[in-house]
């Protein structure tokens, strides 16, 4: 129960890493979550699945470079300070 703000940051980094490692061709297309399979309904009701696919794709695009930096910093800090 003793959560700290540091655990929150750790959780955020782990979750973002988990989303970023999903591979487009090898995995997402196989289960029907590919980039081209989300855009079904135009109009004002994208639906939950399309929103999730959008979110996954944008996280993978946007967070790739910052995640490299943050992960490297985490590795260095954990090696130095345990």
């Amino acid at each position, binding site marked *: *129960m*003793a*959560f*700290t*703000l540091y655990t*929150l940051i750790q959780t955020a980094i782990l979750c973002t890493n988990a989303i970023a490692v999903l591979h487009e061709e090898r995995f997402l297309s196989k289960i029907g979550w590919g980039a081209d399979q989300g855009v079904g309904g135009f109009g004002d*009701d*994208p639906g*939950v699945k399309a929103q999730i696919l959008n*979110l996954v794709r944008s996280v993978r695009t946007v967070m790739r470079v910052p995640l490299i930096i943050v992960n490297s910093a985490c590795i260095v800090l954990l090696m130095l300070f345990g």
Partner: protein
Amino acid sequence: MDYTAAQSGFRQQPNMRLRNSSVDGPDGSQLFDDTSAAGPGAQGVYRNQQAGPQAAGLPGQSFLSDPMSNLAMVYGSSLASQGREMVDKNLDRFIPISKLKYYFAVDTVYVGKKLGILVFPYMHESWEVCYQQDIPVAPRFDVNAPDLYIPTMGFITYILVAGLALGTQDRFSPELLGVQASSALVWLIMEVLVVLLSLYLVTVNTDLTTIDLLAFSGYKYVGMIVGVVAGLLFGKTAYYLSLLWCCAAIFVFMIRTLRLKLLSEAAAEGKLVRGARNQLRMYLTMSIAAAQPIFMYWLTYHLIR
């Protein structure tokens, strides 16, 4: 310092410098009472009082009466105020201070009524927020508007009450206060993030801002405090009973408040609107409201043994 008798007793002095940049509501419904008529005089009094005690505190020193050091002191204080203005301006870019001020524009009557509604929402009839030319009215004038004063005070009081509860069981140590505070804060942040995520996924077009969600999530601390205090005073049965009552009250409060903001017009009035989207929104409202009692129990059960 100059304590002007404002209507709500709000101390105006520190806000003088920011007055021009703050968002005042439309005429007749300003966020804070305007005492700028006493502005320049009060500021001069403030600065004189700042320089005065310094000069009087060192009576035997002659270097303070030296005009050069006087000049240096005045220059230093003007530099400090310039620096402060720059910091304020830059801080406003990251944390919207003027928007935050809206949420703290409360007075005693509002706080009393809101606390009453939080504990007993069954008699309250109209739950709609009043608008004035598309700007939501300050919480002082509308009891349904969300504010940040009650959640902040509730959070701090919850930490203190938790420390008190732990102390009566001989489990207290000063670090535990920090642990409780960060735990509760983390749960709050996670709850707000999850609610934001689910609002994004369900594509609800709503005018709920993040700070509104923070305010609504913070209202449960009132119920938690009531439960823990009852448990401390009267024992475990009283804790469970009062927690049950407060959980039901918060559930009803959240449903009635969120219903107007999340559901479409027709559904909010109680008519049955079919359609997958409305059903999804209904489930979303129910789950947000149901999460509150769960958190209330989770954050307090370890305090009452």
